């Protein structure tokens, strides 16, 4: 492997070493003693929390599948007008910040359910509709329905046909989707903190409680390790269960049928029901942003721009309402954090992806390294950063840009995942063609690679920005008072009493929905405009 090939990846590797590896190592070496391990692992509450984390995640997986499978089946097997729009809209929840979804459920549900297990699991299911839809539907789309008929003609009953033909073809996708949903729900933080209340703690939320409320850093780190072990076990289990490469469909063409008759009616009911579920919390959020208590009012929105107007309302006692400046500050903080995180992640991901593509199969290890930020939970990462960069010239905990640094680490794997497949598709012969026309390596990179990657770069930037706008775990650890990001501010407002503060939370959540959907439209337009570099064949 040449040093030149690796050079472009060095900034990203250094970045990950400083802001991911170092904090984790510091956490493990400086904060944990042997006594912490025995103390945490022998305590009954630890196992109670672990058990709750496990079963609420399993219940969330079941709820997610119950909610998403009907639509997944209909979209995966049928062709109909507006199919793409339905799929995009049904996926919206996944891209919304978890704290916004939590706020949406508070706005939607009756007061007695605001803090409840049902709300928690419903929010988890809401998020993960997209995972089931996006992972399982493509497999359904290419499933050859003729195989079922073949099995029936050979004497197999309905159950036998399912277990011997349909299930083997679908197993990988189902297991993958279930695994991903489980991990998301197992490590969920904002939803648990907002909708679970103080009595329901998962390992993830307990890590935060130990680190910040109790000051038990050693205990928090041990719990982080327990969490990593569970996640690794789920990943390995998933890989073992999904080992069915031989049963992958041979055909890759779509085998969709037109929905007609009763199926069309059933499909319409499924679509309307699912999309209603998806839209309901968002509509409730927007409506609640226009209400203070039971009264219709623009006070929440006015407080974004005019502190005086808020002060004029009876609910705006100084202790209850948050000043306009704090709200606007959090908007600005979130905006600039997202922009900086997107820029940094994009620059680093471009170098890393370039090397991964150049190295080909020899670059698999680098591809795997770029995915490492995904297995460290943001809360753990935030914790590591807090204890690592805590003194002297590198005490960056109070700076606004430090949150952007963390978000660039969290967003890096996603940006790499967007760029690498597109880059692999850029035909090397186009660079050759440019070379023989006199282009220097730099000109080739700019004129060929970057030009062809432009839509993917836009998509990657939008994705990182959306992640940054919604990220809660690390931001809640690192945001200093007065410069909170939007999700942190929303969670704080939801945690306080008073009608106006709650309305303000809904206002900010509505703003965040708009910001995230805008970022996602950017991503979608990037994907749609993506020219196919190899498709330079001619009519």
């Amino acid at each position: 492997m040449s040093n030149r090939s690796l050079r472009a990846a060095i900034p990203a590797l250094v970045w990950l070493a400083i802001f991911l590896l170092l904090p984790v190592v510091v956490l493990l070496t400086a904060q944990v003693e042997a006594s912490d391990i025995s103390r945490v692992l022998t305590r009954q509450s630890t196992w109670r929390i672990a058990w709750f984390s496990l079963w609420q995640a399993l219940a969330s997986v079941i709820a997610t599948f119950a909610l998403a499978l009907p639509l997944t089946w209909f979209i995966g097997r049928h062709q109909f007008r507006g199919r793409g729009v339905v799929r995009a809209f049904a996926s919206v929840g996944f891209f919304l910040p978890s704290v916004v979804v939590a706020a949406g459920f508070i706005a939607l549900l009756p007061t007695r359910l605001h803090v409840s297990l049902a709300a928690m699991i419903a929010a988890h299911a809401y998020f993960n509709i997209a995972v089931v839809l996006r992972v399982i539907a493509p497999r359904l789309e290419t499933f050859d329905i003729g195989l079922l008929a073949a099995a029936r003609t050979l004497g197999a009953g309905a159950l036998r046909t399912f277990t011997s033909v349909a299930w083997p073809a679908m197993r990988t996708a189902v297991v993958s989707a279930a695994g991903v949903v489980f991990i998301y729900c197992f490590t969920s933080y904002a939803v648990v903190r907002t909708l679970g209340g103080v009595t329901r703690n998962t390992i993830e939320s307990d890590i935060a409680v130990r680190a910040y409320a109790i000051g038990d850093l050693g205990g928090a780190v041990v719990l982080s390790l327990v969490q990593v072990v569970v996640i690794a076990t789920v990943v390995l289990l998933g890989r073992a269960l999904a080992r069915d490469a031989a049963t992958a469909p041979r055909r890759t063409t779509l085998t969709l049928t037109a929905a007609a008759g009763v199926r069309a009616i059933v499909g319409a009911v499924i679509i309307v029901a699912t999309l209603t579920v998806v839209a309901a919390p968002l509509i409730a959020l927007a409506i609640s942003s226009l209400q203070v208590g039971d009264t219709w009012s623009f006070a929440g929105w006015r407080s974004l721009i005019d502190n005086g107007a808020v002060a004029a309302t009876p609910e705006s006692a100084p202790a209850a309402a948050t000043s306009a400046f704090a709200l606007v500050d959090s908007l600005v903080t979130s905006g600039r954090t997202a922009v900086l995180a997107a820029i940094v992640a994009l620059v680093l991901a471009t170098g890393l992806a370039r090397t991964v593509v150049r190295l080909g199969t020899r670059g698999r290890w680098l591809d795997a390294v770029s995915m490492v930020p995904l297995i460290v939970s943001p809360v753990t990462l935030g914790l590591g950063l807090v204890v690592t960069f805590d003194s002297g010239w590198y005490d960056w905990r109070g700076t606004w840009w430090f949150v952007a640094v963390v978000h660039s680490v969290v967003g890096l794997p996603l940006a790499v995942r967007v760029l690498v497949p597109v880059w692999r598709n850029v035909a090397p012969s186009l660079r050759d063609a440019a070379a023989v026309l006199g282009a220097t390596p730099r000109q080739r990179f700019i004129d060929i690679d970057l030009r062809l990657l432009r839509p993917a770069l836009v998509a990657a930037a939008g994705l990182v920005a959306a992640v940054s706008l919604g990220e809660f775990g690390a931001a809640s650890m690192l945001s200093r008072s007065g410069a909170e990001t939007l999700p942190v501010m929303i969670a704080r407002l939801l945690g306080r009493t008073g009608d106006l503060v709650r309305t303000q939370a809904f206002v900010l959540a509505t703003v965040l929905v708009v910001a995230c959907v805008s970022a996602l439209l950017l991503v979608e337009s990037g994907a749609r405009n993506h020219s196919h570099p190899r498709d330079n064949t001619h009519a």
Partner: protein
Amino acid sequence: MLDVVDLTVRRGAQVVVRRADLLVKHGERVAVHGPSGCGKTTLLHAIAGLLAVDTGQILLDGVDITATAANRRGIGVVFQDDQLFPHFDVAENVAYSLRVQGVARRERRRHADDWLERVGLGGFAQRTINSLSGGEAKRVALARTLAASPRVVLLDEPLTGLDASLHDRLLIDLRLLFDQLQTTVVLVTHDRDEGAALAHRATEFSALLRE
């Protein structure tokens, strides 16, 4: 004059071109024939500087260019599958060599229009690459290569994939253009008729190898 001396090229561990010699005089057009996979394209890519040479020399007008980067050799290539840049329009493709030299857009456009006229594609400047037919794409690829004023042009199966009438028409146009420009050309093709129609002389690829 292009002089390839005792050239050996590997792809990985495999020797694809073993001890090849080829001499092409100024203004001469030489066709190299051979079956698919014999190493014709590899030889062209090595001459163009797109592949590293294992041993041997490539001389252009007496100067050793074996180690010279592809972008500084002054050798043009018309690729088998054209390799037009899909993200540029026709004019920007044709004038790409001027773009990399920093020539202003207006001058590039004038140059592109001029070359498009010469290859019979006047008015195509703003067309997208994906809107071109096979024959039109070949002409754009040729114009792009010639617009760079290369000292030698390498043609890799230039007429493959075209239907018979397009093939014959383009063959005639190519010959007229090369006659007019006195271009030094190395053409590799499996089609002997094509070679005979375009080149001053033809040789088997195997005849280029010393052993």
